[in-house]
C-alpha cells in the first residue's frame, strides 16, 4: 500500500514536471528559434496582396475559371479544398463511388482542355490527393492545360510554358521526390503579368 501511494505520488510529480519542460519550455524554445530564423515559414508561408492574405504557398485552393490552371481534385471537407478539414476520399480500389467520380473528372478534363475522347488523362488530374490540399500538379498535367489557359488569356503558349518552367519545383537536392508545379504560384504569376 505504501508502495502504491509512493509510486502514484512519483507519477504525479513526474507528469507535471515533464509537462513543464516538454510541453512548455520545449515548444516555446522552438517557437522562438523558428520565428527568429524562418518567420515566413513558421507562420504558414502566407501570400499577401494589397495587405490582404490571399492564401498559402503550401496549401491548394480551388481554381475553376478557364484562365487559371486547375489543381488536383480535393476531398477535403464538403466542398473540397477546406483547409480546416484535410483528408482524402478514402475510397478503395473497387469502390463504385470512386470510379463514378473518376469517370466524371476524366470527361470534364477532356472537354475543358479540348482533348480527344480517347486521349489519356494524367492520373494526378483526376484523383484526389491524400490531404485534399496538395498544392502541386505534374508537368504533363500543366502542359495539357496550357493551350486552354493561353487561349483564354490571349497569350502565346510559349510564354506560358516558360511560366510553367519557372514555377516547377525540381527534385530536392537533385534526388528526392518528383518534379512538380505549384498551381497557386503559377496562377499568381499569370495574373501579375
Amino acid at each position, binding site marked *: 500500500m505504501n508502495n502504491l501511494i509512493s509510486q502514484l505520488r512519483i507519477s504525479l510529480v513526474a507528469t507535471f*514536471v515533464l509537462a513543464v519542460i516538454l510541453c512548455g519550455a520545449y515548444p516555446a524554445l522552438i517557437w522562438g528559434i523558428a520565428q527568429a530564423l524562418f518567420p515566413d515559414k513558421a507562420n504558414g508561408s502566407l501570400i499577401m496582396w494589397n495587405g490582404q492574405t490571399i492564401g498559402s504557398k503550401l496549401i491548394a485552393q480551388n481554381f475553376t475559371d478557364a484562365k487559371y490552371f486547375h489543381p488536383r481534385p480535393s476531398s477535403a471537407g464538403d466542398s473540397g479544398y477546406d483547409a480546416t478539414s484535410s483528408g482524402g476520399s478514402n475510397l478503395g*480500389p473497387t469502390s463504385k463511388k470512386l470510379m463514378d467520380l473518376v469517370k466524371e473528372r476524366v470527361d470534364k478534363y477532356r472537354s475543358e482542355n479540348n482533348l480527344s475522347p480517347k486521349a489519356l488523362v494524367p492520373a494526378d488530374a483526376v*484523383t484526389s490527393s491524400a490531404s485534399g490540399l496538395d498544392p502541386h500538379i505534374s508537368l504533363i498535367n500543366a502542359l495539357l492545360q496550357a493551350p486552354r489557359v493561353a487561349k483564354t488569356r490571349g497569350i502565346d503558349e510559349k510564354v506560358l510554358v516558360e511560366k510553367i518552367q519557372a514555377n516547377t519545383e525540381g527534385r530536392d537536392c537533385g534526388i528526392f521526390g518528383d518534379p512538380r508545379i505549384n498551381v497557386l504560384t503559377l496562377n499568381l504569376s499569370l495574373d501579375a503579368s
Partner: protein
Amino acid sequence: MNYFEWIQLALFIGLLLALTKPMGVYLTRVLDVDGKTFLDPIMRPVERLFYFLLGIDPNNEQEWKQYSFSLIAFSLVGALFTYAILRLQHVLPLNPQGFGPVGDHLSFNTAVSFITNTNWQSYGGESTMSYFSQMVGLALHNFTSAASGIAVAAAVVRGVSRNSSKTIGNFWTDLTRIILYVLLPICVIYSIFLVSQGMIQNFKPYETAQVINPYTAQVIKKDVNGQDIKDELGKPVTEESKVETQTIVQGPMASQVAIKMLGTNGGGYTNANAAHPYENPTPLSNFLQMLSILLIPSGLTYYLGRTVKNQRHGWAVWSAMATILLVGFLVCWWAESNGNPHFQALGVDASAGNLEGKEARFGIFNSALFATVTTGTSCGAVNSMHDSFTPLGGLIPMLNIQLGEVIFGGVGAGLYGMIVFVVLAVFLAGLMIGKTPEYIGKKIEAYDVKASVMFIMVPVLSILGFTAWAATSSWGLAGLNNAGPHGFSEILYAFSSAAGNNGSAFAGLNSNSYWYDITLGIVMLLGRFFMIVPVLALAGNLAKKKLIPPSEGSFPVTGPIFTIILIGTVLIVGALTFFPALSLGPIVEHYIMTHSSTLF
C-alpha cells in the same frame, strides 16, 4: 520505378545502416545510469533536479514487478491527466478557435491511444483540438510513451545480459535519461529543420485568406443533426455554396511533429497527418521523417548486441528486420506502381500508378516507402491514404502490423517484441535439432516460453476476436466508408492497428462512435500493457538465471542461418494466424479487381 527512386532507396537503407552504430553506442551510454555523454554538462544538473523532485535514488534498482508497477502507475496518471485536459478544453488557455470540450468516449479513446504509443485518432486534429490540448494533452505522451517503450526494451536486454540478478533497472531513471539525453535534444534540432522546410510553429489563430478565384460549390445539405438529407431515391440533396475564403490552420506544429516521428507515435497534428503540406512540406522533409521513424528502433538492435557482448547477434536481428521491411516495400511499391485497372479502363494514364490518396510531391515511391516504414514500426503517421491503396499495396501495411510490430517496430516495443520472437525461434529450432534451447548463455525454460507465448497471443486474440465481433454487429458496419471486401479490410485494419499500437488506419472507417471508441480503446490497452507485463516477467526471470559459457551444444544466434530462422518464426506465427482473415479482405479484393468488373 525510375533510377532516381532506386537511388533514394539505396540512400535510405545506406543512411539507416550508417546511423545504427552511432545511435546504438549513444543509447548504451544513456541507458547506463553511470554512462557519460557529451550532453552531461547541460543535462546532468537537470537530471539531478529531476531525481530530487521525484524523490528517488537513481541507483536504486527495481525487480520486474516493481518496474511494471511504476510504468503502469505513470501511464494511468498520464491517461487521467490527458482525459481531464480534453474534457476541459473549453476552459483551458491557447484555444483561439474556441473548440468545445472533447466528447467523453472520444476523450477516453484518445487518452488511451496516446499513453499506449498508438496515436489512433478518431478525430481530425485541426477541427477538434486546441493548441493546449495538442501541445500538453497529447504531445506529452509522445515523449513519455516513447521513453517508456525504450525503458522496457532496456529492462529486457538487461534481463538477458545480467548474471543472477534480481533487478532489471529503475523505471524512473530510465524514463528521465531517455527523455533528457535522447528524445529532447534530437527533437530541438529536428523541429528547426522541419520549420526550415515550411512547417508552421506559431500560436496565432487560424488565418482567413480571400481566395483568388471565388467559385460556387455543390454542397450536400445537412439536417440539424449533421446528417445528409436525401431525396426519395436515396440520393443526397445538394445546395449551392459560394466559396470566397479559405481558413488556414496555424499552431505549434513543428515541436509536436518532431517527437511524433522520432518517438514512433504517429498522431497527426492535422487530420491528413504527414500528407498535409504543412506537416510534411517537401520530399526532403519526407525523407528525414521516414528515417527518423527508424532511427531509434534500429539503434536499439546495436544496443542489444553491445550489451550482451555479441555484436553479431545485434546485426543478425537488424538483418532480419531490414529484410522483411525491404521485401514488404518492394511488393507495395510494385502494386502501387501497377495501379488500378479500373482507372486505366476509364482512360487514365497508367504510367503514374495509383495516385488516389497520394500527394504529387511524394509520388508512388515515397508513399509506398512511408507506408511500409510507418507500419513496420508502430509509428502510424501516414503521408498517403492507405484506404485508397490497391488491394496488395494495402495488404503490406496491414500485414506489417499483424506480424507483431517487430519490423524495427516501435521505439523499444520493436526490440522487446523481436527478443520474444528470438526466444521462440531458439526454443523451436533447439527442439528440432536437439540442441539445448539457450539464448546468449541463458537457458530457455518453461516459464520463459509461457511468457513469450502469452505475449504473442494477446494481439492475435484481440485482433481476430474484436474484428469478428465488429464485422457481425450493426455498430461495426455503421462506420464503414467502403462496401464489399474492402469494408471488411477497414475493420480488420482498425483492430490490427489498435492491438499493434500502430495508429494508422484505413481512414474511411468512421470510428468516432461509442462502440468503436470503447472497443478500440480496450484493444490498445491490451496491446500495450498485457504485452509489457509478460515481457517484463520474461526479463525478470532471465535476469535471475546464471550466465553459462557458450559450448558446442548451444544454439548459435548469429549469422545468416539464424537470421533466416528468425524471419521464418515471425512469418509463420504472423502470416499463418492472419491468412484466413486477410483472404476475406485484401486477397479476395485483389482478384475481384484484376479479374472482374465488379464494383461495390
